[in-house]
């Protein structure tokens, strides 16, 4: 985030009373990482390898072993040594966002515990749990769609047609009665995030909550 971004100084919407002044941590080069992990020596593989810990593990570092790839002489000069599977992550992000916005029971990330944590750290009055005698009510968050809007989205998804081989037949994956999506593959999630998602949200959401 740029040093003058307004979210850095926002004391109300995020962590209460906190101004973030730190910049991103330095990035270690391949040689530095190699030297750091080489200090700890080798481990014995097998049943005991999980119990073995290098001194300072979890506090000053998270190294568990000296990876075999360091044995390749060119490995430490490579800029990108390990990469993450983007499609996989995109699928996870899609599922979390979709299930939260559509308030899918059991899948939404906006659960009771999250609300309790929000109340601890942030100043969001409309997201506080409301105690009504022995019952606890969870007020609807502003980023959640209303029930009829949700139904509209599902109906819209049900009516979609795609060109051949663009995505799987999404209308087949929609269950309008249960208000759920079933069997979305990672490519479908990608297509949703890139093409449909924004449009669906623009059409049916009233106003997104403030968020970075």
């Amino acid at each position, binding site marked *: 985030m740029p040093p003058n971004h307004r*979210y*850095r100084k926002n004391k109300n919407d*995020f*962590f209460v009373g*906190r101004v*973030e002044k*730190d910049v991103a*941590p*330095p*990035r*270690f080069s391949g040689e530095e990482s190699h030297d750091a*992990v080489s200090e700890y020596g080798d481990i*014995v*593989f*097998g*049943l*005991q*390898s*999980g119990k073995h810990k290098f001194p300072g*593990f*979890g*506090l*000053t*570092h*998270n*190294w*568990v*072993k*000296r*990876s*075999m*790839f360091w*044995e*390749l*002489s*060119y*490995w430490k*000069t*490579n*800029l*990108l*040594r*390990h*990469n*993450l*599977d983007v499609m*996989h*992550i995109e699928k996870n992000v899609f599922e979390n966002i979709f299930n939260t916005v559509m308030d899918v029971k059991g899948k939404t990330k906006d659960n009771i*515990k*999250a609300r*309790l*944590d929000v109340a*601890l750290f942030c100043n969001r009055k409309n997201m506080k749990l409301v105690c009504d005698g022995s019952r606890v009510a969870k007020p609807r968050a502003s980023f959640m769609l209303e029930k009829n809007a949700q139904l509209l989205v599902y109906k819209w998804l049900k009516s979609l047609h795609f060109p051949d081989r663009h995505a799987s037949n999404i209308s087949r994956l929609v269950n309008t009665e249960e208000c759920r999506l079933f069997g979305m593959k990672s490519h479908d999630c990608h297509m949703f995030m890139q093409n449909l998602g924004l449009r669906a949200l623009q059409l049916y959401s009233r106003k997104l909550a403030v968020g*970075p």
Partner: protein
Amino acid sequence: MDDRSWMYRDSPQGLRRMDYCNGVQGFINFATSIPRNFTDGGIRCPCKKCKNLKFLHQHVVTMHLLTKGFMKDYLCWYAHGELFVLNENMVERVVGSTSSASNMHEVGNDNSNPYRNMVMDAMRMSEGNVSECPIVEEEPNADAVRFFDMLKDSDEPLWDGCTNHSKLLAVAHVFTIKSDHGLSEAGYDKIIKWARNILLEGNRLKENFYVAKSMMKPLGLGYLKIDICPNFCMLYYLENVELTECITCGHSRYKPRTDRGKTLVAYKKLRYFSITPRLQRLFMSPRTAEYVTWHQSHHAVDGVMVHPSDGEAWKHFNSVYPHFSAESRNVRLGLCTDGFNPFGSFSTPYSCWPVILMVYNLPRGMCMRPEFMFLSMVIPGSSSPGRNIDVCLRPLIDELTQLWSSRALTYDISRKQNFVMRAALMWTINDFPAYGMVSGWSTHGKLTCPYCMENNKAFTLTNGGKTSFFLL
């Protein structure tokens, strides 16, 4: 090379120009002047239909060329004894036509019979080895000899007078059926027995699975079975190959012998598919050899990344190792691995780990296709190897080290040359848990992020119990 523009000039109203006719005559003269071009009394026909795959009499070849024209991109007559010269125009055309999967389609379809292609590829490779390359000829090349046996087998018709099936073709067909439908070995043998009965007397169909398999073996690309300690302590490999007990945990290597069993059965076996012959095969097939240099010859547009070779990491690698990058045929690999349950159901917890290598030299339409993803090893289940994955990767790392330093002599069919191939592993691609396994930086707890490392401000949520990184 003399002017070859006549080869692809449009002819008005379907009539051939005079210079085309003269050119074809010149081509025939050139091809017939080299005795090596003749096989069974014919030369390769480079017309649009035959595409250098058929050997025909020179008069027939002339007729084909006059009626059908030359095949695409045959400016250099490399199949008729001309040395391959990479000409700028040709590179352009290759690049232009490589951009999409449709090209792959074309490559696959230029001959309707894939089994035939397989043998033709092998044949061309062995011919090249013997006739054009004195270096290989000098060495006792056992592979080439095996290929020749294979070639002889493939040419022999199934029975005398049979035109559409050779011995190899028949076996390859039945093998495909066997693997497609999970036919047992006994079932295979019975079908073959029946087929031999209905075929003509004196047919050459291999009598059972065992014999057929040994016939297919010279095609190569086998794999190595390495016994492994069930607790992933060690491989019974190289210096430890004779051991019967694990050094670390003392677990027995073999299952207890049953009364009837005569052979020793290991608890766990790692299947290792050596990568070098597979990479070499890329260069030996004319269908793929020319594309291996694509990463260098394609024209990158500034700011647009269409291929990893446009990226910063690739360029950095080039600048650090100029010797490696000077040879565009050197191979750059990516490694992917993830847990996989072959039994399809989540109720049986079983996770075997296939390790797959990708060849990033190939054009973007090809390098992510299943044909060019090389399965390097299968780490057996039932549990994930976890951080012990290093034990299993040992043979692969050894081979990669070798490919980086000592190199492998490879025959490149597109240029008809021998060259020493080197290979480098550029990066690995995994999901996040597997990232921890291969990189050695645990991806759990507060220090999860391998970039921020210990410089982060993560904290545990009081109620959610999870780690949060959003301190803002």
